[in-house]
């Protein structure tokens, strides 16, 4: 199963992720 998030955000929104990394519920995905 998969969850896809699609969202609008200011252009300076940046992800703090790496493709393929393991993540847990509640961990930060990105910030402004």
């Amino acid at each position: 199963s998969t969850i896809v998030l699609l969202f609008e955000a200011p252009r300076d929104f940046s992800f703090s992720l790496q493709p393929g990394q393991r993540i847990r519920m509640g961990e930060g995905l990105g910030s402004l």
Partner: protein
Amino acid sequence: SLSTGSRMLPRPRPFPLLVVTGGCYLGYQQYKRRGHRDEETGPHLATPTQVALYRTFPTRLVSRAWGRLNGLDLPTWLRKPIYSLYIWTFGVNMQEAAVEDLHHYKNLGEFFRRRLKPAVRPVCAASCLTSPADGKILHFGRVKNSEVEQVKGITYSLENFLGPQTSRSKDLSSSSFQEDLLSSPDNDLFHVVVYLAPGDYHCFHSPTNWTVEMRRHFPGALMSVNPGVARWVKELFCLNERVVLRGQWQHGFFSLTAVGATNVGSIRVYFDQELQTNTPRYNKGSFHDRSYVATDNQVKSAPEEGGVSLHKGEPVGEFNLG
């Protein structure tokens, strides 16, 4: 005895040795070249015929049969060996489970829906957006030209994924589907894909504070969504059964979509008792909308009048076997 021993040793044969080592070397070179070619041209995609063939498999029927099987209560003596095999195969961390005693779970379906101990998933207060689930980040980034990347280099249409805009949200002055979604020209559209492996905790939570205005359920195929298949089948997320929750957050449009798969075919949303997924019959290409916002000629119950408010980290729903 020395002379007898030397007679028994095989004579060195340089030619076959040369052929084997040379063959291995050429095979390795070919493998390396193929790897480089894949990096340059992108991953190998399934042809439309291959996808059509895959779709002829009764994945929904298999999924429901799998669900029924896993809904059968196991005798107490059989629970521990069956769940232990599952734990060992998929690397489940039972120390995080709210109930660690394996005898407690009546069947595999119940074990799959296990809850976690309250403190094991702290919700990041510093980030405005948090992960809705445990899993692996398949892809993330900015949406360009109304196309979303499924994996690197393979895109799918935003319109096919979300379905047509409702008349309420459609802006006649905008030129693209993507622009229709944006509330401000200074903003962009972003996406993140989280893949949940069989051993992961399978509930999903609200990634931010937001209001869900509508749900759109797309019945569809139930192909596997593992990363290998996501790299192979283009538009996989538009073909599979999914539930789109859409609404608004502090920066405008926000949506969370749960995509089903063969093993995990049904999706439950806690605040929506009407939602029924992985049912035997459906019309290809159809979708079912439910608005949580009361319109002028529609009187809804009080909690739904302005949509469903969700807080960051709040449980939203779960995936189920079959």
